[in-house]
């Protein structure tokens, strides 16, 4: 809407990462943004179970050490896959399909949202079913910067940030990639390089 001039944004570390993700996708013009770095308080860090809370330059607040792990995520990883599934099924049954997790997400940016596409999420009331949440989990796998807005705005208190942190762990293990970095490009967007993959060429 504003076509000219610089835009100053007060940002925590996670928001700094969100800006990087948007800039990489050419939704924001990095050159026009001035970051005012805000260091999170210990309370805020605990609320987000954040392990990377210090912005690249601190203009407001003072730096505090991050928290190492999300305890719920550790518990879930220690549980059997069946227990894990049951946990999430139970959580998702509380969903009232308010779309707050998507509306308040800084990196949820598609023009047309698959969550509104009836093929995948039929419009038959609430709860909307597992697909709704799994679509979001996959869509955010290479974008989520763990700001926790989804979890805080969820009227059903679904521990969405824990889910994101677990997906992020998988991304790191499988692809060595973490969202939010200004330079590296998501491996999910670049699986095809200049040479076609061998297996695929044989299949043709």
């Amino acid at each position, binding site marked *: 809407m504003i076509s000219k001039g610089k835009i100053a944004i007060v940002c925590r570390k996670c928001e700094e990462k969100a800006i990087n993700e948007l800039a990489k996708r050419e939704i924001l013009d990095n050159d026009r943004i001035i970051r005012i770095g805000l260091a999170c308080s210990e309370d805020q860090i605990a609320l987000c179970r954040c392990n990377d809370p210090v912005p690249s330059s601190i203009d407001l607040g003072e730096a505090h050490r991050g928290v190492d792990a999300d305890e719920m995520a550790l518990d879930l990883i220690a549980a059997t896959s069946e227990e894990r599934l049951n946990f999430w099924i139970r959580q998702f049954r509380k969903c*009232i*399909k*308010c*779309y707050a997790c998507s509306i308040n997400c800084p990196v949820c940016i598609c023009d047309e949202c698959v969550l509104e596409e009836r093929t995948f999420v039929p419009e038959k*009331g*609430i709860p909307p079913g597992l697909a709704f949440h799994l679509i979001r989990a996959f869509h955010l796998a290479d974008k989520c910067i763990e700001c926790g807005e989804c979890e*805080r705005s969820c*009227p059903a208190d679904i521990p969405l940030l824990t889910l994101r942190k677990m997906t992020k762990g998988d991304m790191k293990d499988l692809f060595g990639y973490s969202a939010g970095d200004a330079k590296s490009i998501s491996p999910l967007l670049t699986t095809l390089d200049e040479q076609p993959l061998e297996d695929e060429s044989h299949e043709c």
Partner: protein
Amino acid sequence: MNVEHVLTTCPYCGTGCYFFLQVVDGRLIGVVPCKTDEISQGRLCIKGYNAHAFVQHPDRLKHPMVKDGRQLRKASWEEALDKIASEIGRIASKHGPDSIAVFASAKCTTEENYLFQKLARAAIGTNNVDHCARLCHASTISGLVLSFGSGAMTNSIQEFEKADCVLVTGSNTLEAHPLIGSRILRAMERGAKIIVIDPRDTPLSRVARFNLHQKPGTDIAWINGMIRTIIREGLLDREFVESRTTQFDALKEAVNGYTPEKVEDITGIPKHELLEAARAYATSEKAMIAYAMGITQHSNGTDLVRALANLVMVTGNIGKEATGLNPLRGQCNVQGACDAGCLPEFYPGYQKIDDPEMVEKFEKAWNKPLSHDIGTTITCTLEKIISGEIKAVIAFGENVMISDPDIAHVEKALRSLEFFAIAEIFPTETSHFADVILPAACYAEKDGTFTNTDRKIRMLRKAVNPPGEAWPDWKIVCELGKRFGATDFEFSSPAEIMKEMASVAPIYGGISHDRSESDVISWPCPSKDHAGTKILHTESFKIGKGIFAPVHHSPPKEQTSDEYPLIMTTGRNMFQFHTGTMTRRSPKLEREAPEPYVEISRVDAKKFGISEGDRVRVTSRRGSITLVARVTERIILGTIFIPFHYSEAAANRLTNPAWDPISQIPELKVCAARIEKA
């Protein structure tokens, strides 16, 4: 570019969430939750997130219109208001002021509702003023006034998450009051026992520990059954019963016959489930009850509410934090409209019309002789129109052609009116019958207050200008009042109107816009230095001692038969709101629930040869509608459910207008029907 974020109150349910309306150069572009709001805590439901969507819709009424012959044409405000004044004046002088009725609106502000009733009482001279509370919680007011002395929610929304047990009945809380449901979910995660008693599986009942299903219209039986169990097993709060209540012996005798076997026979609730639920409720330290239309909309609605009051008092679950009896109000300002006196039996602040001292008080305040006769309710008004006693109606935004039972009957009434004027934001099924239509401002276009379900006064702030020539309702009433020759309609702002209301209604005595700007206050708040009242009945009931009422089960007015073998019940869904005037014009909401449907159990569907997605015809003794079948496990055998939002298949074409003799609330929740492939 001019960007503003205007903090205001959601126009949908009675929860009263604050949010910010985002305005860019006079256009509403979105809604942002308010993280510091004590009710919503930065969370909203999908209706809240889309509350901006209908405001600047092209269908909005922009100019006054007057009917010439059968055609509506554009008119000036002057002409439209003069026409209303002259027609109402003519009819009132010929047939008396009681031949006129005013329908107020639970979507308008408390200040506007104060003026609606003042218009009826002081300018026209009749107590015929009522609004849609008649269709939702009229029986709550009559029942709780009799049992406790005050007809409002006893505790606050925040307390739900602190309760050890929440019993929810006749309320689809997660869909109809999502942010209250959210608190109940929190209590559940803390380990509280959630008991849901409903003929349908609701989103809340599916995650609740206790999920009981009663046949529609059998609630007094299970409530009395629970009370009997509580008394017999010694789970009652003896000290509370002895010190705070009267008529316990009468109650004990009344519930004696409701053995678990008999209750199972009447309600269909297995006896062990009833016993477990009764014990869970009675043995919890802090237990809350929430209820809504499933309790109130019955031809014995007042008795039903009193039965719940008995249950609360027998366990001493009232007057303390995280306890109480909590009617969840459906409209953003239905509490405020009741508080402001838009009820035919009450002046503002529930001061009784049949108390000569009160009449005198208001005659003095308004400087006008007033009618001593209790006015006519909305339900009864329709009867009186058909019988010719009431000739003219001025309505502020009621859509009776969708919301009231037996629409064919409503239509007959509207057609029989000699004169009908309506102020509305959109053309509706009801405005179609009007002789004069006035374009009104909606919630985003005016200042004022809403009072939410837990009696909190919430500010409404203007974000954008009304479309075309539309006016806020308070300005319309001021102009009408002056034209009826009344003095005291010279208000220049809603804050001034609140000042007058506070001076005549003691429960609002300490309320002002100045205070509400910074504090959220719950009434009763009798004076400027009073902090407001979060929990009612802490030391004593408003009437001294709480009164137990020996009430008995009586079957619904209409029974199933060979011709109409199913019980039909009505309700709401998450995405639409009431008559759909606003939500059906909000694309994201309409997308989620675009068409009318009837829910039917798998077994019944098989019996009547119906499959998922079939077009079916549902017929009652009053009418017939065609809609899509949804075959589901989520409704009990022998019952079908239809949401009432859809004009193309209006559930209220079928419902029964039989009403509760005390509160005159219609039995919207039960009628007999049949279903067949269309």
